[in-house]
Structures are given as C-alpha cells and as structure tokens.
C-alpha cells in the first residue's frame, strides 16, 4: 500500500506557482464543514468565499471597496452604499442590492447572527436603484465602518434556510474570490472563482488549508503564508527555506488595566506613577522576544496610525522609565517610600495583584517583568493567573486590581477610544460590561467621543483624536506597555507582494476580511 505522507500533499503548495499552502485555519483537531459566515464555529476562510461591502485595513483604517463600489454619508444619520454591478454569485445568479437588504433583514430577524451589532446602529434600510440607503438611529459617523463589515449572503439560497443560527452551509455560494474545492476533515482547498469580479487580481489558483498547523508543520512543510508566533524566528522560519520572510506589525496595545473604582487606582497621580516606573522597552523585549516595540501613552498604534498622532505629545507619547518621577507621582497620590517599600499614610506597604490569563505566555512574561520592575519602586505585586474564560469574566465584571489587557486595533480611531473610554459601557463592579473594563468615566471625554461620533468634518475629527490622546497621556486610564504583534510569516518563493512595513496595505492576519486584501494584492513569483 502506498501511504502518502504529509509532505506528498503539502508541497504542492506552489510548485506550479498558483497553489498556496496556508496556515490560516486550525482544526481542533479536524475540520467541521461549517461555512456559515455568522457562526462562531465557521471555517476561517468563509470570509474568502463571501465578501462585505468594504474592507478596512485594521492597521491604519484605510478602506477598500468590495461589494459596494462607493459610499456616501450625506448627513451624519444616513449612509448610502452604491452596490457594485456585474457581480455574480458563484452559482451564476446575479448579485443585487436586494441581497444586501436581505442580509441586513436577516440579521435583524436573527440577532444571534448580528455579531457586529449593526441593528443597534440602523433604523431602517432601503434600496434605491443600485444604492442601498441606510438610515441610522441617530447621528453616527463611525457607524458606516461597522455596517460595511457585514458579510453579504445570497437571498436566493438563504431565504429558504430555516434556522440560520444553526445552519452549517456546507456548500457555500458567495461572491468572493474563492469557492470551496475539495473538503476532507484534515485538509480542504479553495479554488479560484473564475467569475470573480476582480479575478485578474487574484494570483493564487488554489488555496490549501491543512487542519494541523503546528509550528513544526509550519517550518517544515513549506507554507506560503502562516500566522504564528515563532520563537527565534530568524533561526526557525527564516532559516527553513529560501524566501521566507516575516512581518510583525502591531495589532493592538497591551496595557495594564487598573480598576479605577478602587484606591489607589482612582487617583491619576498613582497611575502616572505606575507608568513612569515601567521600563517599557525591557517589558516588550521580555514579553515578545524583542519582536515588537514599546507602546507610548497616546493609545495609537504606531507607526500604523502615525497620521493621527498629536504632535504636542512629548516624545510622541512615549514614556521612559523614570523612577524619581514615579516616586514623586506616588507621593502626590499619598504614598511614600519607606526603606525599599512604598507605604501609604498609615505606613502599610502597598501590595497589588496583577491578573493575567493563564497560558497566554507572552503576557505572563510581560507581567512577570512588571512585577520585577514595580518591586524596584517598592510595590509588591502578586500574579493571579486564572484560566482565560475566568480571566475574561473577571475583567468584564471589574473583579481585579490591576489586569493585563489589550485595546485598539480596530482600524477606527472612534471605535478604539470609544471602547476604551466611553461611559456608555460603564457598569458597576460585579456586573458584566463589554468594554471600558477599567471603568473609566469622564464627562469631558464622553463629550469628545460624542462629537467624534457625529462630525463629518475631518479636521475636527483629527482635533478630537489629538485631544483624546492627551486624555490618555495625562489621565492614564490604562497604562500602555507594548504592542501585541500580528505574527505574519510569508514565503516569497511562490508569491510576492505580501504586506510589509514598506507596503502596509493589510495586516498579516489570516482571519476576517483581511485575507481578501492580501489575496487580491499578491502576485505569482517569477
């Protein structure tokens, strides 16, 4: 019996230059055939089979039209998408604005599908020729960015689906660049949709997605694109094959979330003291093996969002370790150094608990380094490592003193700051909230966010962004430390034009709509 080995199957990855081996979808350990784009258990590549109206580059917020060719916001409460013509579903049916409306109606009927919460933003929706006009519940400029992410499904097939929440959509029909090829529990393929409206931009004829993508597999099996944190990437991935490259841009900010409902964290001076006490370079180095940079206090992802950076912030928001400054901040907050301990007015040494999810090793290393550094300013930090689900719960319920957390990275300035600072998410400790976990509340900031929500004036938007950065810098509602990397591993052997620091047109993420950007931009090598 001729038993094929792993390699037999996998090195097809581009021998002819048009087939791509992709580590984008992990079976656990095998694949379920679920291509329902709204299902949490969907195959990751469902977003290559279906398309949204627009795709946002989460790194800098740049938007690329997909199923909509244009959008317009005549007033802050209305969004008009002009739907692309000459698009067909992969079964040959024509794609129409009615499909778009059908999709939104579907989400309204089944809130479980509405993972982006669009119906919290939309009042009504109507078709006007090739346009889809959306009336919002109020003035809301950033709403468009959320609404346009909605994945559009074909009315002619989905209208008959009885329960779309449990529908597994085994034979997906979409408008996207790829259609499902062969599906087996250990591996499946996507074939290029030759009728795709921009088929000329799609270089890879076939995508191969194995279920097992251990780091060992990734290094050995000649992947073209993988998303994985690789320890010692130069000696592993890069050394493994000619043409292997990597790009680890920041995808979010890892920060200390202080529980602002309790002392001493309710005192900004104390938070600033913590901020000054940290050597962020060292933390970033320890946590992510030096593959990411330290984060400043502006709340922006740099260099991605450089364009929005408030030029008035000292050092571009970066805060260097300054123990003396830290001590004076602490003093302002009522804490003094006594020997090598930081004590309150009653002389009680300060002891804090830092929560970090168990098993998230980079965070843990960062947290351990924070522990060490805070010990140097006389604060005793105990690590609390709940399991991820419990961590999530503690974070949401405000059940922590100091917690590791992340924010940002949606590509939308408004979204990033709103989730972090808006009191609309404010809940008492013990009640679940979905954002603003540190429970920050400031009327001025709320006003800024409200204005940012309604203004169409781009200059004003930028001004508000500056002001929000100042709030972040001066109030320190969270203490940013380092960037969470996006761990893109690429091979130039078969395809070129991968996103990179020089050409950051997309993030290296293999999920959501991002691969649409990547796969319509790369070119066959040679």
């Amino acid at each position, binding site marked *: 019996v001729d038993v094929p080995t792993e390699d037999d199957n996998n090195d097809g990855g581009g021998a002819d230059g048009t087939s791509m081996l992709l580590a984008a979808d992990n079976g*656990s350990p095998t694949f379920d055939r679920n291509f329902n784009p709204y299902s*949490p258990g969907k195959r990751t590549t469902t977003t290559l089979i279906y398309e949204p109206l627009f795709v946002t580059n989460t790194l800098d917020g740049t938007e690329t039209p997909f199923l909509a060719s244009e959008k317009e916001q005549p007033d802050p409460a209305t969004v008009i998408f002009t739907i692309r013509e000459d698009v067909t579903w992969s079964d040959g049916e024509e794609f129409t604005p009615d499909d778009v409306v059908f999709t939104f109606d579907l989400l309204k009927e089944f809130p479980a599908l509405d993972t982006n919460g669009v119906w919290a933003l939309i009042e009504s929706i109507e078709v006007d020729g090739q346009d889809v006009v959306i009336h919002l519940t109020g003035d809301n400029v950033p709403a468009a960015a959320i609404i346009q992410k909605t994945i559009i499904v074909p009315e002619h097939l989905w209208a008959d689906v009885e329960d779309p929440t449990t529908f*597994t959509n085994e034979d997906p029909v979409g408008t996207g660049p790829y259609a499902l090829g062969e599906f087996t529990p250990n591996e499946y393929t996507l074939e290029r949709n030759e009728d795709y409206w921009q088929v000329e931009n799609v270089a890879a004829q076939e995508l191969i997605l194995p279920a097992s993508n251990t780091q060992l597999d990734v290094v050995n099996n000649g992947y073209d694109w993988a998303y994985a944190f690789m320890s010692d990437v130069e000696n592993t991935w890069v050394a493994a094959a000619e043409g292997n490259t990597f790009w680890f841009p920041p995808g*979010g900010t890892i920060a200390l979330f202080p529980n602002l409902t309790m002392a001493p964290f309710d005192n900004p001076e104390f938070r600033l003291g913590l901020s000054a006490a940290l050597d962020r370079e060292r933390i970033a180095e320890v946590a992510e093996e030096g593959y990411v940079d330290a984060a400043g206090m502006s709340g922006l992802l740099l260099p991605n969002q450089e364009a929005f950076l408030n030029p008035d912030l000292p050092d571009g928001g970066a805060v260097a370790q300054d123990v003396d400054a830290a001590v004076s901040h602490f003093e302002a907050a009522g804490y003094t150094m006594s020997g090598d301990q930081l004590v309150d007015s009653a002389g009680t040494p300060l002891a804090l608990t830092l929560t970090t*999810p168990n098993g998230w090793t980079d965070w843990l290393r960062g947290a351990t380094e924070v522990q060490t550094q805070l010990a140097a300013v006389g604060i005793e930090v105990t690590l609390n490592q709940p399991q*991820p689900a419990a961590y999530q719960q503690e974070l949401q319920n405000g059940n922590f003193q100091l917690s590791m957390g992340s924010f940002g990275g949606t590509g939308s300035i408004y979204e990033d700051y709103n989730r972090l600072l808006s009191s609309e998410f404010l809940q008492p400790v013990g009640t679940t909230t979905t954002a603003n976990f540190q429970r920050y509340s400031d009327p001025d900031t709320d006003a800024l966010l409200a204005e940012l929500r309604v203004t169409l004036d781009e200059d004003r938007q930028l001004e508000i962004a500056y002001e929000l950065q100042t709030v972040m810098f001066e109030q320190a509602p969270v203490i940013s430390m380092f960037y969470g990397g*996006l761990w893109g591993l690429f091979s130039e052997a078969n395809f070129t034009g991968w996103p990179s620091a020089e050409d950051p047109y997309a993030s290296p993420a293999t*999920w959501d709509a991002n691969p649409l950007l990547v796969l319509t931009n790369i070119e066959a090598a040679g």
Partner: protein
Amino acid sequence: MRYVLRKIGLLLLTLWAAVTLNFFLPRMMPGSPTDAAIAKLAQNGPVSPATRAAIEAQLGVPTGNIWDQYVTYLGNMLTLDFGVSYTFFPQSVSDLVLTALPWTLVMVGVVTIVAFVLGTLLGVLAAWKRGTFLDSLPTLTGTFTSAFPYFWTALLLLFFLGYVLQWFPTSGAYSARATPNLSLEFIADAAYHAVLPAVTILITSLGGWILGMRNTMINTLGDDYVTFAEANGLQPKAVALKYAARNAILPNLTGFGLALGGVVGGSLLVERVFNYPGVGYLLYNAVTNQDFPLMQALFLMITVSVLVANFIVDVLYGYLDPRTRR
C-alpha cells in the same frame, strides 16, 4: 435477590452522583462558555462589544435557576439528548462523540489490550525467571518507562521518529486529503498514523502491567498448588502458565477492567500532542472551553463505560475464577 438489587441500587446511585457532579463541577468553574469563546477570540485581536450578545444568543447558554437547569439536564441525560456543543457550534454533541469515538476505541483500545497482554506475559516471564536477566530487563525497563510522563514520551517520539528521522507522520489520524472510509488503503494509512501515539501509550503503560503481574505471580509461585504441580512432574511451561499465571492474572483483571472502561476517555495528553481526533482531544476541548454539553456527555460516557467494564470484569471473573461462581 436483595443483594443484587442492592448492588444495582448502589450502581445507579454512583451513576447519579457522577452525573450530578458532571453538572455542578463544570458550572463551578469561573467564567461562562461565552467568556471562553470571547477569550479565544480576544487572542486574535479586539472583540467588538456586540459580539458577546451575539455569541450568547447563538449558543443559547442556559440562564436562570440552576435547579431548573439541573432537572432539565437530568431529563436530557436520561433520554440521551446531549444537545449542541458550544465549542463546535452548531454540531450536535452526539455527532461529535460518535466521530471521535472510533479513533479512540481502535487506537487506545488496541494499545490497552496489547499493553495488558504483552505486559502480563513479560510479568509472567520475569517472575518465572526471577533473579535472572530475563527478570531484571523487563522489570527495570518497565519501572523506568512507566515513570515517563505521557506527554514527554510523546514529544520525544514526535521529535526523533517524526521530525528528525521522518519515519512516521507527526499529527492527525490519517493523511491530509483522505476521507475516512473502510478501504484497505485508508486503514493502512490510519494504522500508520496511529503508530506514534500508540507506541507512546504502550511505552508508558506497559511497565505497570509488567510489575503488577510480576508481583502477583511471585506470590502464586509460592502457593502450594504450584509446588504440588511441580512435585507431580508437570512441564515447567504448564506450571508457569496453567497454574501460576492463570491464578495470578485474576487480581490484575480488575485493573484491566478499569483500564478498558477508561479507554472511551481516550488519552488526553497523547491525543493532544499528536493532534489525534479522538475522545481525549474532544474532552480537552470541552473542558478548556467550558463546553458543558460536550463535557457532560463525555463524562457520562466514561462513567458508564467504566461501570459497565467493571461489571463485565466481575462477570468474567466469575467465569475465570470458579471460587466466585456457583
């Protein structure tokens, strides 16, 4: 009759308690299935506040009075209605279990049996040849290998035989493009993939059987019927097997029963290291994702099968040991 009724009563009580524990223990874990799902999403980047509500609505995580939930749960268990998995939404738990079960049953089951048979034989040999090389070799090797952590053995095999020498595939239960079927070719492929996980389990579990059998066999070797058989000039082989080993194996059967019952639980660490799509991996997924329905079904299955296996061993015991018969 009263005895049997009592025994059955106790069995059912144990089952009920295990099932109840299955219900309450996971729910004591901090965090909900939704939290687990969000925590998983959060590893890839920011999660939109709307997602939580959507996931909650979609999974249909039960809320409300825990006692009502418990009663419903008991009813479901009785009717073998295990519901839908949270982790693998919207797959039904029964489907998931039925897909994973054959892999585990065949791979872990076969190894368990092989380990028992081989270990027992080696134990017999060691006891019979006590104090010689044929004793110390299996005994010492067994002592050492049974002290290996499962996952470590798995990693070493993976590294040397899979990665360095590339003799065996390093993950999965069959080749990438294969779809499970019953063709010879597929079976050969599956067997090839099962080698490393199977060898791992074999290496680490063999020692226990060797030592156990050796100990009991040394005891029976001193029994009078063995001496008498020798005095009657039976061939050494007959004395060793039909007299000493035949009696020594009985106490070890209990352990074998538990082991066989445990087979349906798979071999969590090994399956995880080798990405083997068996029940152990499923169990790992269930437990780490707080997938109550899946966890409950698996725990129930394991509990029942251990109980049943024990029962079968009891019956078998009666057959093998006439003293308990009549």
